[in-house]
């Protein structure tokens, strides 16, 4: 057992969950609910889907409690589950999104944000056109680059944690981030 992991509050809570303490699970949920939902939302751009997937993430954490060992940071494990589920969802729905894009483009040629159909989000997108362009640029990144950027920028995760989630080296993460930021800088230069 990694002594450093024992000191990590999340790992402590997860060990309590493993021992049958449901209040500890509520604490974990409180600490990571927003982070996970927001991360998934930025991947799928649909709040309803994001919350459903986030629920599945926490369900899997709960179901796996008996076999939990604090060998790595809890957040690495948590975001690995979230990433896996989200990428699977995107792959399963990629064909639908592409078809919808073609249909919409053929009508008016306007930018299309198909992943979110909720009225509130649509209003937000109309209101914040610059924001929409940023979203579009982030969405256009390859999966690994996008995940790395979302974790680095919005989840404030260290290179080693991102590397743990993506199952690659720290230098590979730095390379992914450099290429991603380079693309984003080029695409969004006119906004500066």
């Amino acid at each position, binding site marked *: 057992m990694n002594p450093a992991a024992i000191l990590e509050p999340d790992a402590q809570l997860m060990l309590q969950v493993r021992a*049958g*303490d*449901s*209040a500890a699970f*509520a604490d974990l*949920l409180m600490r990571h*609910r*927003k982070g996970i*939902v*927001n991360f998934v*939302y*930025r991947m799928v751009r649909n*709040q309803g889907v994001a*919350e459903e997937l*986030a*629920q599945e993430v*926490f*369900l899997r954490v*709960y*179901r796996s409690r008996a076999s939990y060992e604090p060998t790595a940071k809890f957040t690495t494990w948590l975001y690995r589950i979230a990433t896996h589920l989200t990428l699977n969802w995107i792959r399963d729905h990629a064909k639908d999104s592409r078809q919808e894009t073609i249909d919409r483009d053929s009508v008016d040629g306007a930018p299309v944000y198909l992943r979110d159909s909720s009225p*509130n*989000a649509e209003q*937000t997108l109309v209101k*914040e056109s*610059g*924001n929409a362009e*940023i*979203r579009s640029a*982030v969405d256009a990144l390859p999966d690994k680059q996008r995940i790395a*950027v979302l974790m*680095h*920028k*919005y989840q404030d995760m*260290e290179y080693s944690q991102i590397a743990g989630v993506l199952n690659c080296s720290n230098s590979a993460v*730095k390379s992914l*981030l*450099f290429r991603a*930021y380079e693309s*984003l*800088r080029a695409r*969004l*230069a006119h*906004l*500066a």
Partner: protein
Amino acid sequence: MEEVCYLRNGGEGALVDFVSGHSGQYAEVHAHAAACADCQRFIAEQAALWAALDADSAPEVAADFDRRLYAQLESVDGENWWQRTWRQMAGSAMSGFGRPVAALSLAVALIIGVAIMRQPPTPASAPVAADRPASLQAVNDIDQIEETLEDLEMLSLFANAPRSL
């Protein structure tokens, strides 16, 4: 000694860290950028991107997120999540000061129960005292006084007994 340019020597990561505020070599990068136009430009562009990305906000999590999750957890456990949490909380309270309090409450309830059972039944058809002869009423009063004294004597024994808790 010639200063090494971060941008020309594969040190872009250090510049990104500088912008994100996670740089372990902030002072060095800052000093270098002050004299290097290329690194300065990179930092300015990255800072602009960093600020632009801040605009990509995410909606608030639905208020019933936890309720929906707990409903699913119940199907995992086959037990009501709130009931289980309550049972655990009650269990932890019982392991502390709650245990003697519960024992005391049980004892009080038993005493009250016994006292109620010991009271003689008073049926509606029972004759009232005024209907009895005066001599019989006096005998009854003496019996009641004796009974009360016996009860008091028994209670005093309990009061002087050593505490077991």
